[in-house]
């Protein structure tokens, strides 16, 4: 029986009656609704996509988020300003330090004490923040590569991420649930030997990036699934509020660290990489380069960091020492008031924004003058980038969902809050 089918044809033919009739029109098909997620290997972060496919082609997508909604705002309204820190850890949970920093700076802005934060604390914030940015990008790239079949780069990346996590663990005792920042500074000073360890890890991480680059960047399979797929334009970014690596991959050179420098970012020499096409590969490449730039910042910060206190000097913000607390009524009261009553933030509202792993992480705080937020809104950067997915995925092949979704880097904890 002669049933030859041209090997290059993508068409799937079922039940061939007349094998020679390959040029006949395709069988009429109905769009097939297909559920991806919420529990699906490629849907990291628990998101559900209801995809209508016509053959392999996506005709429409409904992206449904909210599976990781943890009532961040509602819980915050019932917590003191300080008690919100652990909740922020769990926003973008692979760069919790950046969320900590963003929130601390927002409260400090509302209290009007931004310029009283000791310099050392500001440097520490930059250092732990940039470390977190590297771990964030590594997880995104490693996981995306793995989902495309490249398991080795994933392991390499996680190996390097582990070095950095262990370093953060030395700083604050936790890898993820760091809660390291405080209103007015940070909880502890850096441990001894931190600088040397970090320099060593930076050197080794650079090598890992080279290795990973060799494995991926000229890999036919990897490039075929990234190049030209999922193109976002600059106009889209503005319309949808897409910032961060996804925004910069389109050539939109918006980086809060450069455009509105906070902490001590204006003292560092670093570049903001931008892409030219806005496709998946640009998002990959921008992230790789950003890790290199972060390491540049880290090295400069380690050179510049001054000695000094790591907390503001204000007894109404800083807890007294435990020895004082247990042995004098004065410190006991101060401790009690700060813990139970909360640090009082003057009534008012502010929007404070920092460059987090996924872009502009904003905190819109409303205070009624008491020890807890009236409202504590997070502007999650990946919420904006995820919201473009329905438009972006339309017309792509089903298989393109995996790299496109992966490199948008939707983080459930941050997107759903």
């Amino acid at each position, binding site marked *: 029986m002669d049933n030859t089918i041209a090997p290059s044809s993508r068409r799937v033919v079922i039940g061939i009656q007349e094998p020679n009739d390959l040029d006949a029109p395709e069988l009429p098909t109905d769009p097939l609704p297909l559920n991806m997620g919420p529990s699906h290997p490629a849907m990291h972060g628990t998101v559900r996509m209801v995809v209508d496919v016509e053959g392999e082609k996506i005709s429409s997508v409904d992206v449904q988020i909210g599976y990781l909604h943890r009532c961040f705002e509602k819980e915050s309204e019932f917590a003191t300003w300080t008690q919100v820190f652990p909740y922020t850890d769990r926003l973008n949970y692979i760069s919790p330090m950046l969320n900590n920093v963003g929130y601390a700076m927002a409260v400090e802005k509302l209290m009007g004490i931004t310029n009283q934060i000791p310099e050392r604390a500001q440097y520490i914030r930059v250092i732990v923040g940039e470390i977190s940015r590297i771990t964030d990008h590594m997880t995104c790239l490693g996981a995306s590569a793995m989902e495309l079949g490249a398991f080795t780069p994933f392991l390499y990346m996680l190996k390097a991420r582990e070095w950095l996590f262990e370093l953060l663990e030395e700083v604050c005792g936790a890898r993820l649930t760091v809660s390291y920042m405080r209103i007015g500074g940070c909880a502890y000073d850096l441990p001894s030997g931190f600088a040397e360890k970090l320099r060593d890890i930076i050197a080794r991480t650079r090598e890992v990036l080279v290795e990973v680059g060799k494995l991926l960047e000229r890999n036919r399979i990897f490039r075929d699934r990234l190049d030209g797929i999922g193109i976002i334009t600059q106009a889209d970014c503005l319309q949808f509020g897409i910032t961060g690596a996804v925004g910069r991959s389109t050539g939109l050179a918006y980086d809060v660290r450069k455009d509105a420098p906070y902490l001590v970012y204006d003292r560092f020499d670093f570049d903001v990489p931008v892409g030219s096409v806005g496709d998946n590969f640009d998002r990959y490449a921008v992230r790789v380069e950003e890790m290199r730039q972060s390491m540049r910042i880290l090295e400069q910060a380690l050179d510049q960091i001054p000695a000094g206190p790591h907390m503001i000097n204000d007894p109404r913000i800083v807890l007294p020492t435990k020895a004082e607390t247990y042995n004098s009524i004065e410190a006991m009261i*101060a401790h009690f008031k700060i813990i139970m009553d909360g640090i009082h933030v003057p009534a008012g509202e502010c929007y404070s924004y920092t460059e987090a792993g996924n872009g502009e992480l904003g905190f819109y705080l409303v205070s009624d003058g008491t020890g807890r937020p009236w409202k504590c809104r997070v502007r999650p950067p990946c919420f904006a980038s995820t919201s473009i997915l329905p438009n972006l995925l339309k017309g792509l092949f089903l298989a393109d969902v995996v790299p496109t979704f992966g490199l948008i880097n939707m983080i459930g904890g941050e997107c759903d809050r």
Partner: protein
Amino acid sequence: MSTGPVLPTTAGSNAPPPPSTTETVTVTIDGKVHQVAKGTNLLEACNAAGANVPFFCYHAGLSSPAVCRQCLVEVKGQPKPVPSCYTPVADKMEVQTATPKVLDVRRQMLEFTLVNHPIDCPICDKAGECMLQKHYFDWDGKLARNDGIKVKKAKVVDLGPTIVLDQERCILCTRCIRVCDEVAGVHQLEMSKRGDHELLGTAPGHKLDNPYSLNTVDVCPVGALTSKDFRFAMRAWELHSTPSVCTGCATGCNTDVHHSRGRIYRLVPRVNEQVNKHWMCDEGRMTYKAVHADRLVAPMSKSGGGAVEWDKALDDAARLLRTVLDGSPARLGVVFNAQSTNEDLYALSKLAFDHLGVTRAYLAGRDQGWSDKILVSADKNPNTAGAFAVGAGRLKTLLDLANDLKSGALGALLVLGTDGVLVGDKASAAMPLDRLEALVVLSTHKNAVTSAAHVALPLAGWAEIDGTFTNKLNMVQRVHPAVPAAGDALPGWDALSHLARRLGATMDFQTAKAVFTEASSKLAFLKGADWGRPVRSVQLRFANSRG
């Protein structure tokens, strides 16, 4: 056999007392000129003008002894800072409330107070609502300079049936002594000894046992006096506060309900100069206990064999009432209750009088009790005035109810609130409820009446609903829901609306506010009354609402 609630012969008027003569003086406070009524004390004038002058011993409802020296301010022409709580304003007075000297004196006084204060915050009932904590944090903030031995005093002194004293925590402000002297009118507490050995205790031959004793706990700025009822029950900062009205008697003291996680822990007075000023009686404070005891939590139906769904209970109730109504409408009676809110009473009157044409209506309520000239009324119902106003002369007494039951004039009874409606034992002869063909009862609590009822519907209590009560001064006062309703209980107006619809009446209230709005357009005593805005429970630690 009681006759049920009666309206006091001298009902007060709604009008505020005539204003006193408003002679003012000119006072300059922190550089700003203010006109202040003559005779005001300087502390009140300063704080009314927006200054933040702290105090321990001063209390707005008591006299001022000027012992704590926290409220010192500088007055031009005076060589030393003066205690503002003890100084009446004078014309052309120039006052500075926050000069470096004042702040320094204030801080030093706090330091003296703290020298002997025990490190008790973690185990102190008052922590979180403590004035000493607040003032230290606001005005001192310095660490201890002295780690000498603190003076030891008695930690547990039983002052009476309601109060325990910790003498170490006492900062000797004498507020509690003045509460007994000036509010309860009995001298039961006294200071003894001197200096840092000065002690609070009961006066010789006395116990702290007056009916207003728990007010001493409220006014105590620290945790020296603790209520035996509340002691160690709950941390103050875990409590949420919802404004309400005491339902213990017809006075209608304004209260704050302090609750946490759906449970009430205490009632405290809320300031209302026209009703209770700053105080309330001990008996009223304990009314919260009934909210969580012996509640009827699910609808009960005899034909359903016990607890049933609301729909089933309402269907049964409507069917039973309908049977009697269809036979002879005059044999249906309704019982109003002076414990119910105006909204529940209005809903019942609308159903009974407007829709069912009921001719036999009665008013039940708690029996008369003791009273005094301070706050406690003999009428132990919170809404007698409202019930009489809603009833508008159509309500008969419980004595009539007993007679009608005995004569067999009643075949069915719809009871809103069971207080005062007695069955069993010696009252069974007076109230033979078992002769009824249909007894439908709406009740907050399980009792003999609900067990006798053919259908018993659970009512949400005063701490669980939105509504208004009318006190003996004819003031319409609002209660707010503090805790969720017990079990499946519904507010009375809601349950009655459901029942009314099953009886073919058009009554479609969705909210208590809607009932109130309709009622206030029809009933004279509610005209001009304001429903007010919704309130949120305030968590005490953040609000600093006390102390």
